[in-house]
């Protein structure tokens, strides 16, 4: 309790050691002088007076020590002293210092690099809702040359999955983004497009910010040709114009109706600009 009350003054004292030491010095000297004066008045010689005064005082150094322990935070001060000493020693042995610094730098650097990779790959979860419920389905081919190679499933297998396993919301995409030419009104641009199945955004937990998602209608071959835009493209090319919904744009020369725009900041594995039905 007492310690806590006194703490602010102790901390303040850490910053004023020189001034406070000078003060203490003067005060103690005054004490000895006054004592010597009184002794002289009692008839002692100047020399004897002073000796007696010092003897009555006790040890000046001990007093100063006890005083300083009360005044500051001795633990911290000792720590700082040790720190200064260590620095002095380091400066006196430059070769050793350089070796240590380089070794530490290499070790820390290597550790940081490895951690960053592991963190990104394994420790951080996917930026989708409920990442632990997401997975990827592969086929494995076993036979004369069995291997653990993973193969993508083909369209027929997927359609079976989609129709016969209602518990799984599955979606497929085209393997890579394809570059498509986009024409809208007077503007033309080369953008990244991806073909996705109807429930693609459901799997990722993304809903279009305006407009609607694909429906299973669009999954059918020769279904209506619709496209969902990414937020970035919408802002860049169409200046965030809401009237784009329901309008047709030309992709690869074919007409597609814009049915939705993804929310800002939505992240997909491909980060394409336009998403069309499969």
């Amino acid at each position, binding site marked *: 309790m*007492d310690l806590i*009350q*006194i703490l602010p*003054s*102790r901390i303040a004292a850490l910053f004023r050691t020189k001034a406070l030491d000078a*003060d*203490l010095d*003067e*005060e*103690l000297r*005054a*004490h000895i*002088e*006054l*004592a010597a*004066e*009184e002794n002289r008045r009692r008839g002692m010689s100047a020399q004897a007076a002073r000796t007696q005064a010092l003897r*009555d*005082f*006790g*040890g*000046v150094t*001990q*007093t100063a020590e*006890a*005083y300083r*322990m*009360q*005044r500051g935070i001795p633990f911290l001060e000792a720590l700082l002293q040790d720190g200064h000493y260590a620095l002095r020693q380091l400066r006196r042995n430059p070769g050793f210092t350089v070796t240590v610094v380089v070794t530490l730098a290499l070790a820390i650097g290597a550790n940081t690099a490895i951690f960053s990779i592991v963190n990104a790959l394994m420790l951080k979860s996917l930026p989708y809702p409920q990442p632990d419920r997401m997975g990827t389905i592969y086929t494995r081919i076993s036979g004369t040359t069995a291997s653990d190679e993973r193969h993508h499933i083909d369209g027929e297998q997927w359609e079976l999955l989609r129709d016969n396993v209602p518990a799984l919301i599955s979606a497929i995409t085209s393997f890579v983004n394809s570059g498509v030419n986009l024409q809208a009104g007077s503007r033309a641009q080369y953008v990244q497009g991806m073909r996705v199945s109807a429930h693609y955004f459901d799997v990722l937990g993304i809903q279009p910010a305006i407009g609607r998602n694909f429906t299973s209608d669009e999954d059918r071959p020769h279904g209506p040709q619709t496209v969902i835009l990414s937020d970035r493209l919408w802002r860049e090319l169409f200046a965030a114009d809401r009237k784009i919904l329901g309008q047709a744009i030309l992709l690869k020369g074919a007409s597609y109706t814009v049915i939705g725009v993804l929310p800002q900041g939505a992240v997909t594995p491909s980060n394409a600009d336009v998403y069309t039905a499969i």
Partner: protein
Amino acid sequence: MGDKSDVLQGTLDLMVLKTLEAMGPLHGYGIARRIEQVSDNALCLNQGTIYPALLRLEQRKWIKSAWGVSESNRRAKFYSLSALGRKQITEEIENWERIAATMARFLTAAK
């Protein structure tokens, strides 16, 4: 109750406070001399020990310090009681009497 050094510290603090109460503002040497006198020189502590005590009292804001000039025209630091310190005296006296009473009980019971 603290250990032995706490009790000693506590009594020294109280003696300093009472001295200042009785004598008014005084410098370190004066306080030490007065304590020696009042205790009829039975208390032979080294005069230097009052300085940590004075610092402790000042940290608790029970006394204040100011540089002044002694009768012999010497520059010295003078200490005086603060209002808080004045109030503290009664509490410290109670503490002391409680300790003394406990010790007395303990010693008579041990017989």
